[in-house]
């Protein structure tokens, strides 16, 4: 993965000094609260319901073991000994002290980490597929482009005070879209044109929140060297013309809709015509330099361990299930991609203790070249595990709580921190996830149901991506009481769809029953091959409505 050079290091150190200075001025009363607000947000610092919350950036989800160990130490020294993996591949601390934050940032900078632009009305962390570089069906590794975007967007002088936050995601697989690019402000799909040249299909104006939208395509093919000048053009059009009078209408999706995708694209093209040949145009050398950090690790020359695994699976049912659900095919023979699930019932989705962070670091060093990836489903991936060591790994992780073989199952719930922690939330989300996990604790039944995305958000801001869950749950406030609205049919991959609201909302205690009834309808209506989403798309929402509101 990317390693800082002297320029990156220098700017990281300067950033910490800047925030230290800003924090001192804020504490001395020289900065009004509204003046300090964007400064602290652009350093990841929220003031939350119970304490400040610090969102630490994990660029496109990549972490080294040394960084995990440092995070563990920080949670011990400055927090309550645990952290939270977010739905945008980042990590949050829930209990730091405001005056300690500059020290935390200094500790992070020592291991090439930061919290730049993890909040605020600026360009946020660029996200991508957690299987980048190790899956066989991608056109190219998207991570170098994410890093190029990271550098371009970091401290961009023109785009630090946008109308609203701005999120970019990149995907390189034609079959899957684990980055959910079509619900981002800009979604970049890596493609080849007819001449075989590499480039991007550019989607602009997707998003969740109050007005969920799937992003239209505004350019079918953008040559790779033109990436940054084109992004700059999109951002400039947005910065100039995006609405600033109403926070709820300020995202780029509203501008794209108002101008129509064609009208918006025209404005971008006109802007781009002026700058496309400027020195900001990428060079093949610049791309190659970044790519040189994402080369393959020193893989052993192996054959697939098919027979060994077959025997081990035969002898051990638990291992067999785990292999089936939590382990994916690797592009290299003899290797496998392992997802560690952070969704053990009884623990809020995505929460990890300091000790677990260190355990993950040890596992990375022992099994996967010292690197891990954080997923937007709030799990952790060991991307390069030898097949002949899978059993050994599984035996280690089960007692740690990372071996629940429920990846992509109903209980692999995406869930925001909700009303237990977040000042914005209308309702709690963690207890709902917990109650559903407890209700569906039979793995055999879950396997029979197959893949179902269940996503829970505690409010409209949709950090739990409820709109694109096959089953989405949204916490709403009704006269001071917490209720939950259910939507069905959402999808986040290439078939991105915003879910449809089932009907009136439910009390929290009813939620496990409601989900059970929805599952019931699926089980009764499905044909042999159908997933939940397939059945929903075939039969529509009415049978679910009838059963749930009967």
């Amino acid at each position, binding site marked *: 993965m990317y390693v800082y*050079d002297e*320029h990156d290091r*220098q*700017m990281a150190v*300067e*950033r910490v*000094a*800047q925030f230290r*200075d*800003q924090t001192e001025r804020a504490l001395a009363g*020289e*900065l009004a609260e509204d*003046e300090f607000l*964007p*400064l602290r947000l652009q350093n990841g610092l929220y003031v939350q319901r119970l304490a400040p919350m610090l969102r630490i950036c994990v660029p496109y989800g990549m972490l080294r073991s040394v960084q995990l160990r440092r995070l563990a130490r920080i949670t011990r020294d400055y927090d309550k000994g645990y952290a939270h993996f977010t739905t945008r591949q980042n990590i949050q601390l829930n209990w730091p002290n405001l005056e300690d934050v500059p020290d935390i940032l200094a500790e992070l900078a020592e291991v090439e980490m930061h919290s730049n632009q993890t909040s605020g*009305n600026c360009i946020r962390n660029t996200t991508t597929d957690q299987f980048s570089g190790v899956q066989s069906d991608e056109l190219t590794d998207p991570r170098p482009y994410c890093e*190029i975007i990271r*550098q*371009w967007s*970091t*401290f*961009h*002088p*023109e*785009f*630090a*005070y*946008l*109308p609203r936050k701005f999120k970019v995601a990149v995907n390189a697989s034609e079959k899957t879209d684990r980055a959910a690019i079509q619900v981002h402000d800009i979604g970049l799909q890596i493609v080849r044109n007819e001449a075989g040249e590499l480039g991007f299909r550019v989607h602009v104006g997707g998003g969740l929140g109050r007005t969920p939208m799937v992003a239209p395509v505004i350019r079918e093919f953008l040559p790779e060297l033109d990436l*940054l000048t084109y992004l700059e053009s999109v951002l*400039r059009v947005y*910065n*100039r013309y995006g609405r*600033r009078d109403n926070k709820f209408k300020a995202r780029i999706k509203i501008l794209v809709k108002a101008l129509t995708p064609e009208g918006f694209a025209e404005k971008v093209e006109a802007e781009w015509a*002026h700058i496309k040949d*400027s*020195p*900001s145009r*990428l*060079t093949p*050398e*610049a791309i190659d*330099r970044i790519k040189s950090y994402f080369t393959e690790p020193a893989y052993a020359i192996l054959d697939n361990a098919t027979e060994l695994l077959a025997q081990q699976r035969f002898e051990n049912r638990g291992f067999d299930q785990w292999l089936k659900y939590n382990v994916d095919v690797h592009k290299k023979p003899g290797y496998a991609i392992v997802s560690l699930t952070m969704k053990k019932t009884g623990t809020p989705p995505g929460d990890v203790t300091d000790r677990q962070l260190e355990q993950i670091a040890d596992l990375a060093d022992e099994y996967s070249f010292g690197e891990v990836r954080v997923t937007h489903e709030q799990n952790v991936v060991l991307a390069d595990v030898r097949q002949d060591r899978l059993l050994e790994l599984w035996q280690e992780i089960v007692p740690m709580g990372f071996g629940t073989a429920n990846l992509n199952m109903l209980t692999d719930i995406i869930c925001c921190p909700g009303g237990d922690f977040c000042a914005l939330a209308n309702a709690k989300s963690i207890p709902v996830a917990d109650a559903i996990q407890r209700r569906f604790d039979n793995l055999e039944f879950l396997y029979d149901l197959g893949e179902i995305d269940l996503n829970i958000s505690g409010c409209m801001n949709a950090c739990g991506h409820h709109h694109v869950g096959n089953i989405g749950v949204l916490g709403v406030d009704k006269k001071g009481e917490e209720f939950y609205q259910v939507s069905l049919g959402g999808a986040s991959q290439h078939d991105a769809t915003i879910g449809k609201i089932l009907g009136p909302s439910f009390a929290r205690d009813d939620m496990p029953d409601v989900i059970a009834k929805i599952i019931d309808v699926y089980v009764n209506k499905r044909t042999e091959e159908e997933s939940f989403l397939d059945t929903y798309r075939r039969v529509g929402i009415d049978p679910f409505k009838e059963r749930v509101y009967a």
Partner: protein
Amino acid sequence: MPDIIFRDGSIRQNQWNVVQRPENGEALDIPTQQRVLIPADLWVENRERFIGNDDVGAWLDSHDEPEILADYVNDLPMIAVNFPKFSDGRGYSSARLLRERFGFKNELRAIGDVLLDQLQFMKRCGFDTYELRPDKDIRKAARCLNFFSQGYQAATDTDLPLFRRRAS
């Protein structure tokens, strides 16, 4: 009048007055014996009167399109861009367009809700001078203009992004 910060951090006396947009129906009242900045569209409307007068510049509000000055930029001794609220970032784009697209060579000034922590961004986008909000400590400006020794991107201050500087 409050002092003015220059891009090198030095502080000098301000000589320019911002003339507000006249209320509906009222005539533009330009003080004599002073250097003035008038609303950009009014400058354009009355440009025959002002071209060649180095005591009359123009100011753009955050929602004004800098394109209206595109054909005349270097007829103006000064252009100011107003930040009605520091969190309104349109002025950064206006500044870059004036400099990089329309080739404005004379003094570009940030006025309005100008605070310390935005100064370096303003400098990178081509502003030369900054009229700091009077309640802010002008002695801290030099430090805030120079928190960073370089940037990743090209902007008005350098047309070479870091990836090109790294290569050389």
